[in-house]
């Protein structure tokens, strides 16, 4: 198993450009997440998905969009890049079987994005 993979590893964008961060997992997990990590800070949830076709906002969704057409893929879209979106982006996945259950979240290696 490759686990959670993310592409690209690094990217520099100009203000106003758009891009998609790719995330794929091969563990048949139903839940997937996008987090961002600003310098010196912990991770904050941007969006999450509980299954194909279902997505919802996290703590910091502004400026981002997501879709989940398959169980494996959960891309994150930046439409009009801004300097405030300079961050490291992590995708994660887990399998959740019930409301109160918890199973470990597995993280991808991250994408370092700089917006100039």
């Amino acid at each position, binding site marked *: 198993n490759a686990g959670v993979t993310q592409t690209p590893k690094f990217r520099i964008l100009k203000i106003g450009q758009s891009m998609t961060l790719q995330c794929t997992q091969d563990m048949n997990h139903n839940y997937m997440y996008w987090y961002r990590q600003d310098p*010196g*800070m*912990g*991770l904050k*949830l941007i969006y*999450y998905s509980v299954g194909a076709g279902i997505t919802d906002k*996290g703590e910091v969704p502004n400026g981002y969009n997501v879709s989940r057409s398959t169980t494996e893929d959960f891309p994150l879209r930046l439409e009009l890049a801004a300097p405030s979106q300079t961050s490291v982006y992590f995708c994660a996945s887990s399998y959740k079987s019930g409301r109160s259950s*918890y199973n470990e979240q597995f993280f991808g290696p991250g994408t*370092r994005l700089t917006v100039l």
Partner: protein
Amino acid sequence: AQTVTQSQPEMSVQEAETVTLSCTYDTSESDYYLFWYKQPPSRQMILVIRQEAYKQQNATENRFSVNFQKAAKSFSLKISDSQLGDAAMYFCAYYGKGGATNKLIFGTGTLLAVQP
């Protein structure tokens, strides 16, 4: 809303010595999980140890152990016989079982340096 606080931005320890990283949290929930994640320079998020709130016994994983004080809402990580490979950013994280999102709430992290 739940919060996680790590009051030590940086810590240093001599190789083979013991170090304790602090974490406090705030929640009105009674059932939850607490975690310590390690993030080395590779940026990969690695689960170090987890504690279930209803379990009074402190979790232990090899050289890593926690001191969980539920009433005080304190969750510290002790690393014994520190090794050079333990140098990393350490994040404390919270998961409330009452939520449907499986969302993790992270602290701001403690950067641990290990001196040879």
